[in-house]
């Protein structure tokens, strides 16, 4: 079996700060995703990548950048943290476009 590792588990930032979240998977999956989970709003897709160096915008990409420099890793950058922002960012991967997603445990973001 494989695992998806997200770092850090908790991230506290200041308003306006650029913050980077990292995700590693050892499934050898082609496709990776970043979702944002807000209380009462479910999961919303921020970015996804179908292969190394590929990036595709999801429904919530404004305010974020992503990078897929290796097949096993997918990072997400909050370009300017918003005051009082609080959310959980979930990384996921899948073999292809037709298969189940495997999720990491999440990075919880708080902005002071």
């Amino acid at each position, binding site marked *: 079996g494989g695992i*998806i590792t997200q770092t850090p588990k908790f991230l506290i930032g200041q308003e306006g700060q650029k913050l980077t979240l990292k995700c590693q998977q050892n499934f050898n999956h082609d*496709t990776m*995703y970043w979702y944002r989970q807000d209380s*009462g*709003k*479910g*999961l*919303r*897709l921020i970015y*996804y990548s*179908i292969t190394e160096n590929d990036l*595709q915008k999801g429904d919530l990409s404004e305010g974020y950048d992503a990078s897929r420099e290796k097949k096993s890793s997918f990072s997400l950058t909050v370009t300017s943290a918003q005051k009082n922002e609080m959310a959980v960012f*979930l990384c*996921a991967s*899948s073999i292809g*476009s*037709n*298969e*189940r*997603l*495997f*999720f*990491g*445990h*999440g990075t919880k973001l708080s902005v002071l």
Partner: protein
Amino acid sequence: AQSVTQPDARVTVSEGASLQLRCKYSYSGTPYLFWYVQYQRQGLQLLLKYYSGDPVVQGVNGFEAEFSKSDSSFHLRKASVHWSDSAVYFCAATITGNTRKLIFGLGTTLQVQP
């Protein structure tokens, strides 16, 4: 517009009771349907999925779901819940099996009382 609706934000049941969590979808054609579960402080895990065929699909831990095209629903059921089933349950759907377009419902928080 394509959507997934979970009408119950929170469901409370007693241990040993039966359970149904509701999910309605709005898609043209037949979508691929999933139920995921999120235990506290963990990532989402797949419970079961429906692509085609028998409308009743079996999942892990005694869960099953039934697809209804006429009702546009994919309700999750369990005959007898355990306290460890307390979690948040998400219904999700995609068209043509493209999980890049996976749309999640808002989730239903299940609390099982002893």
